[in-house]
């Protein structure tokens, strides 16, 4: 479960102080499929970084699984990211010239998972992400965009995280492939009850989620369940 209380984030830019997030309060239940959307510059990426433990808020509190992550050290945050959060980025960010399996096993190395379990977990995770088994030993740069994003999803899933954060996962894909990737998220949510947060500026993409939080100028302007 995720709880945000009075989250404020400001950036200092020379003399000016820019307030990006203004006092956000909301919570997300386990197993929800939620989209955070808004125009560019609205602060949704900053919010995603805080939710992903990549950044800490200037003030306010962020509870992840009941733990107050706000005042964690760098190494503790790294640990949280490793164990509880799975990232899917717009530009995939796979290790080039490394095999698909290696890429998926990478978080397990940092989690110090015993060696003999890693490949089994990675294969399982890749199957869940819907990648054909014949690609498992391919190098990551030999895959298509859709396949790369599936590998990235598998990498996000491999540690069985509390939360999957997808930052514009369809941004670099054509509509048809994007649709398949979004379907994968839906399946992961419905069948395996992963909590998924989708960050996007596209309304059609956001509508795949069960709940939409709309942000504009650092304030939540709308928070509603979709009809599904």
């Amino acid at each position, binding site marked *: 479960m995720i709880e945000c209380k009075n989250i404020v984030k400001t950036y200092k830019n020379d003399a000016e102080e820019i307030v990006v997030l203004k006092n956000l309060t909301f919570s997300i239940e386990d197993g929800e499929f939620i989209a955070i959307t808004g125009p560019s510059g609205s602060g949704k990426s900053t919010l995603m*970084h805080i939710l*992903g433990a*990549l*950044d800490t808020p200037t003030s306010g509190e962020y509870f992840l699984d009941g733990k107050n992550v706000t005042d964690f050290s*760098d*190494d503790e945050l*790294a*640990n949280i*990211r*490793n*164990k509880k959060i799975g*990232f899917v*980025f717009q530009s995939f*960010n796979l*290790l*080039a*010239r*490394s095999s698909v399996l*290696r890429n998926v096993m*990478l*978080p397990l*190395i*940092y*989690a*110090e998972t015993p*060696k003999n379990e890693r490949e089994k977990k990675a294969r399982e995770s890749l199957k869940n992400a819907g990648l054909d088994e014949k690609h498992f030993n391919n190098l990551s740069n030999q895959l298509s965009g859709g396949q790369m994003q599936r590998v990235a999803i598998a*990498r996000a899933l491999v*540690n069985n995280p509390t939360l999957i954060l997808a930052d514009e996962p369809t941004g670099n894909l054509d509509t048809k492939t994007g649709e398949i990737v979004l379907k994968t998220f839906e399946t992961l949510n419905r069948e395996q009850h992963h909590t998924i947060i989708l960050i996007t500026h596209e309304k059609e993409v956001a509508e795949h989620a069960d709940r939409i939080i709309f942000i504009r100028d650092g304030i939540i302007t709308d928070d509603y369940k979709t009809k599904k």
Partner: protein
Amino acid sequence: MKFADLFEEIYSALLSNKARSGLTILGIVIGIGSVIAMIAIGQGSQSSIESSIQSLGSNLLLVTPGVQRGMGVQVSQGRGSSQTLTRDDAEAISSLSSVIAVSPEVSGRYQVTTKGTNTNTTINGVVAVYSTVRNVEVETGNFITDQNVKNMSKVAVIGPSVRDDLFGEDSENANVIGQTIRIKSINFTIVGVTKEKGGSGFNNQDDVIYIPITVSAQYLTGGSYVSTIAVQASNQEAMTTLQAEITNLLLDRHNVATADFSIMNQADIVATASSVTSTFTMLLGSVAGISLVVGGIGIMNMMLTTVTERTREIGLRKAIGAKRKDINLQFLGEAIMLTFTGGVVGIILGCLVSFIAYQFFSLATQVSTFSIILSFGVSGAIGIIFGYYPANRASKLNPIEALRYE
């Protein structure tokens, strides 16, 4: 992160970019290899020149006719230079105190023939004491004796190079003794072969034939002029006094005000030669130093680009749970692996080049531990610092910034 995983991560990161790793290693190999080879050649020639000067004999004063301008090696001995020294001068010098031995010598280059072969070599007219004064040892047979000098026997002692030139590479000393050689249409009987002294080119002390000085004076050079009088002093301390005494004696004997001869002190020769060779070593050293710097800049460049290029990778690794320590250790490990591999190959290459220079170009080489430590240390330090420093900086970046890095 466990050590075995770290090692595997380093290994696969280096292997997944073979060209980049290879070029970095190459830079290190060339930097280290050239320093080791250059210093080896420099130090090798220095010690070979010093030892060949030492082998000329000890506590020597060399009296030569004419006035020498500055120090230098006499290329044309005997011929063309002034003929102001005689065997009588040598006789007079031997009566001075603190003189152990006096060896008048006359030398020139002549064509020497034997059955079917011939060679052009230095013919030294010597006396018996030459062998002790000049440190010449006879391998087989005898050196020129006092008896030979007195009787004007047409006998010759040859150097091993002459033996090889005249009788072939595989000729045996024993078979050579008793053979006849012709110098200026005069037959000489070989009575001895000297031990190999080494040296090469202009400095080959084995490419020489010794004959009695009386015979040389009679048939080859004419007159009792000598080209060198080598005087051996009883000890090092006496040499300066002896030099002055000889100067006075000869000025008196020649009845001249300014010297028509010059005296070289062996210590001076050694000093001159070592100053020449140390300049030479310094020259090679600076060339090597430059290649070390260039190699270092290459490593620096390669490491900096590598890390900059991989900032996004660092961001990703951090996002999926790598701690700062993990990132630092990985990049430090990669830098150590590259410099170590390059260093070992470079040392092998440097030694190999030194060996080839010795084997095929007969350059004396001496691989020194100092050069190995210096070159390995410098390029190792550069590699590690410039591999580690930017990675350390990148590991401090917020993962988001690192991921967005272009």
